[in-house]
């Protein structure tokens, strides 16, 4: 069982990394080079090729290692379990929800503004990190923390620490 998941930890990342390296390597020829006076014998393509090539080799090595582990596992009589996407998503629901909340938060921050988006984000993120059976108790503290934190942080950072936090809709009120 342990070995079963072990090979997956090599095959999937290995192939993913190899794919990233391949895309990266394909983009290298598109980089403009400087060939005038003072140019270096090694152009600005050399190091990207070096890193991209190294990453491709490492990714493929890890993937092949994973396939070998898988073959050894099967040979030893192990049963390959089918990857259940639904269960995996369900198991990581809080993580996925956290990433979605964070992505929405930063994506809308510029347009809507730091204060409203932070209130919404903190409220939902606190609930996501709270076990479901405790949600009833968490609504009000989450809202209070959201409002107080966003207003205090906005005021302190924008007006005292010179961090240009997005005003968004607050601009209409001159805040």
């Amino acid at each position, binding site marked *: *069982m*342990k*070995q079963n998941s*072990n090979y997956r*930890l090599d095959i*999937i*990342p290995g192939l993913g*990394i190899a794919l990233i390296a391949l895309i*990266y390597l394909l*983009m290298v020829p598109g*980089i403009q*080079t*400087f060939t005038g006076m003072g*140019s*270096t*014998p*090694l152009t*600005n393509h*050399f*190091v*990207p090729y070096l*890193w991209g090539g*190294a*990453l491709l080799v*490492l*990714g493929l*090595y890890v993937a092949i290692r994973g396939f070998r582990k898988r073959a050894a596992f099967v040979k030893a009589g192990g049963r390959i379990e089918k990857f259940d996407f639904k269960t995996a998503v369900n198991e*990581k629901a*809080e*993580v996925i*929800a*956290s*990433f979605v909340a*964070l*992505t929405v*938060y*930063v*994506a809308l*921050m*510029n347009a809507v503004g730091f204060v409203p988006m932070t209130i919404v*984000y*903190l409220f939902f*993120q*606190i609930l*996501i*990190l*709270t*076990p479901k059976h405790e949600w009833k108790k*968490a609504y009000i*503290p989450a809202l209070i*923390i959201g409002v107080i*934190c966003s207003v205090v*942080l906005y005021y302190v*950072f924008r007006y*005292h*620490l*010179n*961090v240009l*936090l*997005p005003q968004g809709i607050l601009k209409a009120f001159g805040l």
Partner: protein
Amino acid sequence: MIFEGLFAAIQPMTILLIAIGTIVGIIFGSIPGLTATMAIVMFLPVTYSMTASQGISMLMALYIGGISGGLISAILLNIPGTPSSVATCFDGKPLADKGEAGKALGTGVVFSFIGTMIGVGLLILLTPVLCNVALKFQAYEYCALAIFSLSMVIALTGHDMPKGLISAVLGALLATVGLAPIDSKPRFTFGMFQLNNGFALLVLLIGLFAISEVMKYAEEVRKEQKYIVNETAKIKGCGFTLKEGIAQIPNAIVSAFIGVAIGILPGIGGGVSCMISYTVSKNLSKHPELYGTGIMDGVVASETANNGTIGGAMIPLLALGIPGDACTAMLLGGLQVHNVAPGPLIYTKSGAVVYAIFFSMMISAVFMMIFMLIGMRLFVAVLKVPKNYLLPVVIVLCGIGAIGNANMVFDTYCMVAFGLMSYLLIKSKVPTVPMILGFILGPMFEENLRRVSQLASSDKFYTHPIFMVLLFATIIVVIFSVRSNRREAMLVAAGEKEEEEVE
């Protein structure tokens, strides 16, 4: 310069900031899941409008407090608050279980102080020496230094070397985004002006270490987590007798030196130093069989070493601009924000700030000892703060830190992307610390390699002894690391096989 630095460090405002930084650092260090790195990320935007001395002093205080605070949960919960306190659990918890929690905490606190002071002492002595050596560095030497430091990645990747290397190369790859060194031609910017300067180190660090921590906590939401905190812990005086303390001095000195030495090596942090120091202390002891049963020696070895690492990790950071661990990488971001350029000329260009850093580290170490000895009850109570309320606020502060770095909301998008990448890498068992090294050393390597390619016809490599020594050191490091990694991999494989057979 020394007096200027001292004057900057003893300003009432700076002292107040050091005190706040130390307390917050201890709190972050003591709560499992929150680290000194996160504390520094969180407070970095707060320092933007401060003077360089004030801001960096506060960050140093957070670092020292964060590393030291880890001992509280290690002793009282048997969960290390930070990776630096892993070995503190081995004897700290058994001591607490024997009803001597006060002694364990007192020992940890006092010897953390001693470790920090020895580390700072060596930092003050060794940084100028290294700066003087580094002044002789030219393109050849910097190129070899980058290769040597990158070779350390192999040493710190443990049994899975390819995955450690993937992380380092990914870091170097990310660093190629932006204007290329020397000819300033844009690479991988996709026409976005925000990417012309490349990704900010700070933004990458926030994604790697702060966002992923929150996601790791999110994974645990459904699991019942109830910590049993030993709330009866009281420290009388230092918790141990003078005789007991004096008997530990040789152990403390050896451990502090191990901590400093490991801190100097790029990428290897307090987590490794405390383990090595604990093992060395056990091997040198007349009673090794008592280790793990709850004796002072184990706590002394671990806590002195991890705090010694702080001073050690600062040496290459200040003298060469190469961070020793994740915290110092974050401090590198802090130094950059405050226009302090680490490197051999740091004493000439920002001497007063460097001395202010030294003095603030000493002040912070004193505060750490006083606060932890007097206010232990408060820090124990903090262990019960619900993280589901705390972590989202940390994320918001991280977002502010990312925006404040260059006053661009775009950096928050990068922060989320790096957070996702970090989470996926962690799930794939790819370590993330080597990535920082790759990210920092990649541009240094490229710039100097290209310079070397220009110089090679007129300036032969064999006329550069430092270059040759560094390359030789690289070969030695690679051979020894590969051998040790293989041994470790074989042990892991044997362990797995044994487990399967039992199943």
